[in-house]
């Protein structure tokens, strides 16, 4: 009886996983097949598969440019996130007047989705003069509330005696943060890196609003733009999709644990 229910559960899970994976397979098949992809009925297996569509994508669209832009923006966002969030999380471990107000402020910012701020955010960036620049692309992404609380929890787990000892030794607060607290909060740093990287890598609406030149566009924008002007019968568009998804999948598989931990710990903060 137990075995039967086990087998049944495995079957159900296998079915669910198949449903989740079929879109990937269908697109991968389309990217390597050597036929008119709009012919009906579509083949389940690719016909005479070849990888030349990927070569086409590389040379016909500025993939390297889009990729480099995305990497630069993500690097700025990740670096900013680590520094700003660690500082804010450290400050939140101390008791000071108005701490409750600040915490409430942060929590309420979590309720404000980015999409509700796009118009004034554009105006703010315009006033700051950072439209169409890397800094402008990364600026709203430079700090996230979830990561601040991740750091706060990690810092609170460090025994206060270490900080006291460091203070007696005469270290300034900044030094304490970087020399003592951060090295002991490595999981929090990893979580921070992966969360801010994924969010900045996948951002579409903000780059759409703030970039003017084609040379400043990031990968999601390049993908959307390619969709608009390529209508051929080869799988070039889907080769592009595969090339775009691959780094995201690799990064996710590498850092699964940290990513999931970051999402769920943030979730428990409500």
């Amino acid at each position, binding site marked *: 009886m137990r075995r039967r229910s086990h087998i049944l559960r495995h079957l159900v899970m296998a079915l669910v996983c198949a449903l989740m994976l079929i879109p990937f397979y269908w697109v991968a098949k389309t990217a390597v097949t050597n036929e008119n992809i709009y012919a009906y009925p579509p083949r389940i297996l690719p016909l005479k598969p*070849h990888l*030349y569509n990927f*070569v*086409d994508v590389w*040379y*016909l669209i500025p993939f390297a440019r889009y990729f480099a832009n995305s990497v630069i923006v993500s690097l700025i966002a990740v670096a900013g996130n680590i520094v700003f969030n660690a500082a804010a999380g450290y400050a939140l471990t101390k008791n000071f007047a108005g701490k409750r107000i600040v915490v409430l402020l942060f929590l309420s910012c979590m309720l404000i989705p980015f999409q509700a701020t796009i118009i004034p955010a554009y105006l703010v960036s315009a006033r700051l003069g950072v439209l169409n620049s890397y800094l402008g692309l990364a600026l709203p992404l430079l700090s996230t509330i979830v990561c601040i609380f991740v750091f706060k929890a990690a810092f609170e787990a460090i025994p206060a005696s270490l900080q006291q000892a460091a203070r007696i030794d005469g270290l300034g607060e900044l030094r304490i943060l970087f020399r003592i607290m951060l090295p002991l909060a*490595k999981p929090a740093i990893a979580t921070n890196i992966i969360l801010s990287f994924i969010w900045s890598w996948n951002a579409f609406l903000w780059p759409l609003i703030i970039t003017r030149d084609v040379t400043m566009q990031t990968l999601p924008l390049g993908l959307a733009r390619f969709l608009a002007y390529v209508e*051929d019968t080869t799988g070039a568009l889907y080769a592009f999709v595969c090339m775009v998804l691959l780094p995201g999948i*690799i990064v996710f598989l*590498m*850092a699964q644990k940290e990513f999931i931990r970051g999402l769920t710990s943030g979730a428990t903060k409500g």
Partner: protein
Amino acid sequence: MSTRAILTSRFFVVPAIAIATLIVWNLYVAAHAHGEVSGKVVRADGAPARGATVILYERNLTSHFLEKTRTTTDAAGEFRFNDNRSHQIRLDTIGPDGRQGPPRILRLWFAAQDVDLRRPLVVSPSKN
């Protein structure tokens, strides 16, 4: 964290492999990207076609092929281009009698890849 731990962690190994592959690939490309396209033109019966014209087309953005250069085969029916800059080319042959052979489209792995045709281009003999 010890050096050994850093070196074996997945956060180092995966990017290291990616970058190493990138470097090796770029070196390979640099060594083989001179733009040489060479091959042989034969008639339907297998004999080399002397004096046939071979035209090289390069693909542009909107999947049209634009003519780049043309050359003629030598006594042994062989031809050679030295300045291909594209990753997808089309070769048309026009026999000495004016008949056109079937076009051959070549998809390369990188731009200006050196390629030597394995199967010769065929020009159909004139039917007199």
